[in-house]
């Protein structure tokens, strides 16, 4: 019975199947919003309001010819998409949505899981780098170099801004941080600056405009993904969707008070709050133009990092005041 439960947990809900459906829904939501911001219709044809379009895209890519470049590192080249998807799906399990009890730490919710989640969110960046590098295509190589260059910019501000609410909540456990902010809703306002910084950093992590530099199509064609096609590309695209859900979930947990209310209400909370975060991500995407990679690094270290430190200072001061 316990095995069956675990299997259902991993494969159906909240595991792979749910993740697949929800992340493709988020892609649809993102695309539709982006299109409406640009005075376009967005997907309309497949399914009601084009809801099935991302799924159709996924299966179409699955059926396409799969080419591995002659000079690429074949093992690595083929394994990376699966690895990437596995990593972000694992990260999803750590979000405190249904699978935790506050008193009893478990495998999916333990002290320090926020660090593990951040670590698991850093890994996709390396997957992208390796994917680009092992393709041995010129455009991929340039894209891979850009992935790493960008990482030096946004990673530190992201960590600082996501960890400062944890400092205020006095816990390294996501479930406890969320519970703390549910008890003290006013303290959410203290982290407003951090939320902004984290939004920008997550946008950079997800490589969306203005940070879509590693796969800037007008400059370096497909960037890191130039050589990828067929199933592997489909998995990479799914991975990016899941990464978006996980990142939005992380921000919602840390900054917006998590997802209380057990399996059903918790799920509704999860959907509303992640869509709320994705709305802002799409807004940024629609209203900016792509910047240069050197501008990302200087912008991060001139503005984001000092502001993140300021946020940490504010948190420490507030913590001193309330205790």
């Amino acid at each position, binding site marked *: 019975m316990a095995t069956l439960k675990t299997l259902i947990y991993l494969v159906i809900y909240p595991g792979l199947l749910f993740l697949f459906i929800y992340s493709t829904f988020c892609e649809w939501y993102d695309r539709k919003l982006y299109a409406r911001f*640009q005075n376009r219709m967005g997907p309309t044809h497949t399914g009601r309001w084009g809801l099935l379009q991302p799924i159709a895209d996924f299966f179409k890519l699955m059926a396409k010819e799969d080419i591995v470049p002659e000079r690429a590192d074949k093992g690595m080249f083929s394994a990376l998409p699966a690895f990437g998807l596995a990593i972000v799906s694992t990260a999803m399990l750590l979000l405190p949505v249904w699978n935790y009890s506050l008193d009893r730490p478990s495998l999916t919710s333990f002290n320090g899981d926020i660090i593990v989640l951040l670590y698991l969110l850093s890994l996709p960046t390396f997957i992208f780098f390796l994917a680009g590098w092992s393709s041995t295509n*010129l455009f991929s190589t340039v894209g891979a170099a850009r992935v790493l260059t960008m990482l030096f910019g946004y990673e530190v501000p992201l960590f600082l801004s996501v960890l400062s609410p944890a400092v205020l909540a006095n816990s390294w456990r996501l479930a406890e941080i969320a519970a703390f902010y549910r008890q003290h809703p006013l303290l959410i306002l203290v982290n407003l600056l951090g939320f902004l910084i984290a939004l920008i950093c997550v946008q950079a992590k997800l490589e969306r405009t203005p940070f879509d530099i590693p796969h800037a199509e*007008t400059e370096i064609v497909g960037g890191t993904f130039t050589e990828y096609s067929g199933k592997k590309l489909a998995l990479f695209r799914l991975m990016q969707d899941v990464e978006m859900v996980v990142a939005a979930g992380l921000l919602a947990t840390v900054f917006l008070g998590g997802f209380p209310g057990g399996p059903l209400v918790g799920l509704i909370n999860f959907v509303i709050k992640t869509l709320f975060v994705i709305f802002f991500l799409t807004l940024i995407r629609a209203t*900016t*133009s*792509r*910047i240069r990679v050197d501008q990302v690094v200087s912008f991060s270290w001139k503005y984001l990092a000092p502001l993140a430190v300021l946020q940490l200072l504010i948190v420490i001061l507030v913590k001193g005041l309330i205790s």
Partner: protein
Amino acid sequence: MRFQIPIGPQHPALKEPIGLRITVEGEIIRDADIRLGYNHRGIEKLAEQKTWIQNIYLTERICGICSHSHTTCYVQGVEKLMELQPPKRGLYIRTLVAELERVHSHLLWLGVAGHEAGFDSFFMYTWRDREIVMDILERISGNRVHYGINTIGGVRRDLDELQVKYILDSLEILRKRSEYYKNLGTTEPSFVARLAGVGYLSKEDAIALCAVGPTLRASGVPMDVRKDDPYAVYDEVPFEVCTADTCDVLGRAVVRIKELFQSYNIIEYLLKNLPAGEIAVKAPRRAKPNEVVSRYEAPRGENIHYIKSNGTDKPERLKVRAPTLANYAATIKMLKNGFIADVPLIFAAIDPCICCAERAVAIVDARTGQEKVVPMNILKQISQKISANKERKREAEWPL
């Protein structure tokens, strides 16, 4: 570490085939080389086999954006050869279409610049509003791209009151929208960060390298054929030559936006002062032996047609110098010491129309790098020799 990045002949940043060989060190461009000839269509040769009238429609097809520029340039030259004076009303309508074309070309360019900079929202908005001016052109000529309105000795279609009113009404909307783009394009921080200081071309270089059009004017040189050597009715229309002194891509965008407003003023003036009368005079079938150079300020810069007649109903020689060709030398200068990320922007900033500028093909031996120019029949023989003993490749197979 230096390595070469091939941009083109097929690349998402390029709408038409051209080869840019870029030598980079990291992200910085050290050298650039432009290779032309992927889109040669033999238009000049074809023109020698067609009559004066047929050639209007041929020259129209040199470019899909500035089609009217090429016909007007050609028609003006032929009118000089035939010693014709088109009636005032015809010239007014010709100028009106020319300015509408400038508006649609500049709006298109703004969108392309937005897209190259990764600002797709800007692209979508400008192209939506470009439809307004396309609709106007359709109302006037029946076509959106190749208007076919010029003829030797005037224009082919007249304007009526309803059309004039429709254009004036649409112009108001365009003015309002352009005002918005002016603010957006020059104040949106991430967009300006991408454009400012990119692709620097000093005033001296711009003159020395014979840059034309908005590229030249953005370097602070107020040179415009419409002012310097007025054709059609530009000598009676009040307008200003727009310049910028930043010498970069932002300057080129600003010049184009300023020109949009000048064009709106010109269109309004033309419509309000439209003289009555005939729109065309009858043209003879032959032209006396002579030669002529015709200049025209296309949206992209100075367009030059050289026409030579030999007394028959066909030209002996038609030479087209499209504005893009004049800007290539300056582009190389602009690309050097820039970032890879700026290549599409710098290249797009000259508003390249690649197939317009294709006047010759060079055959390059891939192994030795030797270049030579060969006539068409020799080229055919070479290709037959190469492919004679080769097996035909099988079609791609369905993967499942």
